[in-house]
């Protein structure tokens, strides 16, 4: 179906002979590969820490943080602000994207050695908050650089390549942490040191191999958009529509941990399976990110973004359906969940880049992504309450109904205009 459709509506620049896609396959821009490498390395580093942190707290430090989190809900609000600030600051001057990204990656890298000296729950919480601040700061400028470095026609694929590399890092991180702990039992300090070294390498690759100036050399002037970026951005109908859909769909996107919990309970999986479920999603995401990105370029990024949510809807459906209690269902649910990410994560960034002028690219990406993240957070809270009140199946059924409505509304909202008529300055 995808293929037939993509031939019917070729994206600009791809119509023509059979050799053209092959030729284009070779040209993922160097900057995108460099940023992908930075993300891969950084994700190895941060997932190493994530993987051992609970064990470190309980077994290493002998703390028992039973029943309370290291970061409270308030931080989610702060992190949304940071993300937006990162996007906005990076648009300020030429080369700003790289500067803000370096600060963001650098801040997270500095946090790893700090874990060696932070020995209490409040201090570790503070270090993790700083780490997340770094992540919040860098996301929008990094995506802006990817969008500016890639040809508009191949942007979906460029983001797909980046997301695949990012996910590969997330899969490798826990493995590396395990190897370190295998070599040195209880060597949490070694894990943090190795993680810090890996993170430093990521920053260095960013500094050395990502050009400070990406995309058009047009001088960025003080525009109305820059003085009041949020309002000006949301005044643009395209940005407004995308943000609206991202929020609407985000409000009905159940967080990963709830999905895995439902999966485990519905299918009565053994406890030891539980930690493996995220790996299934990540593997599907990793394998599908590039092909789905390429499909998005031909089929329409917005259309694939909406279709990706249909994959999620199907996954919900399998879990809610009365027949949904066979262990065989684990595989399709995780593949659908991974497909959902592959068809929406980088694709949304690419679609946003289509709608936002270069001068405010970072801010535009930050607005849409912040809206989506905030909506998902609200969904987690609501889903948690619904789960408690009605049970997992009813809660998921209600969410599925909501998702179906959101997807239908989004399909209408995102129908026009087609990507070829979007404002895109020559690059």
């Amino acid at each position, binding site marked *: 179906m995808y293929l037939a459709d993509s031939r019917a509506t070729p994206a600009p620049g791809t119509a023509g002979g059979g050799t053209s896609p092959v030729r284009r396959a070779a040209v993922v821009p160097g900057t995108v590969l460099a940023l992908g490498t930075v993300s891969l390395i950084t994700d190895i580093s941060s997932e190493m820490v994530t993987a051992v942190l609970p064990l470190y707290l309980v077994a290493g430090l002998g703390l028992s943080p039973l029943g309370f989190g290291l970061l409270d809900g308030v931080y989610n609000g702060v992190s949304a602000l940071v993300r937006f600030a990162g996007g906005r600051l990076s648009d300020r001057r030429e080369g700003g994207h790289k500067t803000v990204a370096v600060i963001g990656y650098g801040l997270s890298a500095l946090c790893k050695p700090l874990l060696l000296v932070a020995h209490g729950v409040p201090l570790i919480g503070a270090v993790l908050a700083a780490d*997340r601040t770094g992540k919040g700061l860098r996301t929008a400028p990094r995506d802006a650089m990817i969008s500016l470095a890639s040809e508009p026609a191949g942007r979906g694929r460029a983001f797909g390549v980046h997301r695949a590399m990012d996910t590969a890092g997330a899969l490798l991180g826990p493995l590396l942490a395990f190897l370190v702990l295998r070599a040195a039992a209880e060597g949490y300090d070694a894990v943090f040191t*190795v993680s810090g070294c890996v993170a430093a390498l990521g920053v260095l690759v960013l500094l050395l191999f990502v050009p400070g100036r990406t995309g058009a050399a047009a001088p960025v002037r003080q525009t109305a958009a820059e003085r009041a970026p949020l309002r000006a951005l949301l005044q643009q109908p395209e940005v407004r529509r995308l943000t609206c859909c991202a929020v609407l769909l985000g409000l009905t996107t159940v967080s990963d941990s709830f999905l895995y919990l439902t999966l485990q309970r519905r299918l009565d999986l053994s406890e030891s399976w539980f930690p493996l479920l995220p790996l299934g999603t990540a593997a599907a995401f990793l394998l599908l990110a590039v092909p789905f990105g390429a499909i998005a370029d031909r089929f329409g990024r917005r259309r694939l973004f909406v279709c990706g949510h249909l994959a999620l809807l199907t996954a919900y459906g399998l879990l809610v359906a009365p027949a949904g209690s066979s262990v065989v269902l684990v595989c399709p649910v995780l593949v659908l969940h991974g497909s959902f990410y592959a068809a929406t994560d980088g694709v949304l960034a690419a679609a946003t880049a289509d709608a936002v002028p270069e001068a405010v690219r970072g801010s535009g990406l930050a607005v849409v992504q912040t809206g989506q993240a905030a909506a998902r957070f609200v969904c987690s809270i609501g889903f948690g309450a619904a789960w408690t009140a009605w049970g997992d199946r009813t809660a998921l059924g209600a969410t599925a109904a909501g998702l179906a409505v959101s997807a239908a509304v989004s399909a209408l909202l995102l129908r026009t205009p087609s990507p070829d008529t979007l404002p895109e300055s020559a690059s």
Partner: protein
Amino acid sequence: MNRTKRLVILFAAVLLLGGVALGATLHAAGRAAEKDRTQAGSPPVRSGEVGLDTPGREVFRNMAWGPHRDEIVSVPAGGPDGPRTASGVKCLRFHAASGTGICLQAVHGKLRDTYRAVVLDAKLHELHRYDLAGIPTRARVAPDGRAVAWTVFVSGDSYAGTAFSTRTSVLDLHTGTLDRNLEDYRLLMDDRPYKAPDLNVWGVTFADDDRFYATVATGGRTYLVSGDRRTRTLRTVHTNVECPSLSPDGTRVAYKKRVQGASPDAPWRLYVLDLRTLRETATAEQRNVDDQAVWQDDRTLLYSLPGNYGSDLWTVSADGSGHSRRALPAALAPALTGRR
């Protein structure tokens, strides 16, 4: 900067950072190897038979460095400084009563470590095993040995894994019924049904094989609850109680109380609650206690404090009098044999 120059810098950095990473790992590996060697002055340990039905012995996890580190060992309750008899069974958490043992242990896999709960008979042979969803923190056996409970610590899969929660399971050894998650029980808060998504349950202590006490946390507060396996209910009894431990006569609960003005890192003191009057008594232990205490007899509490080898066991009187005293160095998770 040209490409060659950048590659040279990158290569140099890889060497340097790789060296630091390797050095840190080797250093930690050396330190880990050190823990497998017996240290001078540490209690002598030798292999032997550990029986959970031999009366008058203290059984616990040996924390002393050497080949028997982390194994379940026993010493005569009267002479705790004597040589330790090591069973060869390694546990992170352990408890025993009436000849039944519960051992929460790590399983070292090829690509990751997992955890499991193992029910042991009086000779420490495995009877049943269950996979665990997270890191073990608490374990208890009912006084008659016919039910066991455990708590593990599960973390969210979100970036920087900051959402922590507990999962407490109770296993009926008579029927083989496993209540995987006590959060599924009906909670009565001041006798009214109560539901919340942020509910956590941990630290079961049994009255008999059906009734127990535990901690429930919700909305930033902790509660002592009394639980009943037949009716699947939890009923709040008191507030600000964590890791309860019921006295052998069933009249009092020793617990961790979060006290005002303490550092957020060390907020707990060891208290005893009279279940009839709900009167709280502070023990003479002034330090932060983060353990589910064990009653040595109806007057004395046994609990863990950080020590040179990770943990030492201390005793203090349950009535608030006297001083705390170190009972067993390099030990964790004790149980007394030959007691119902």
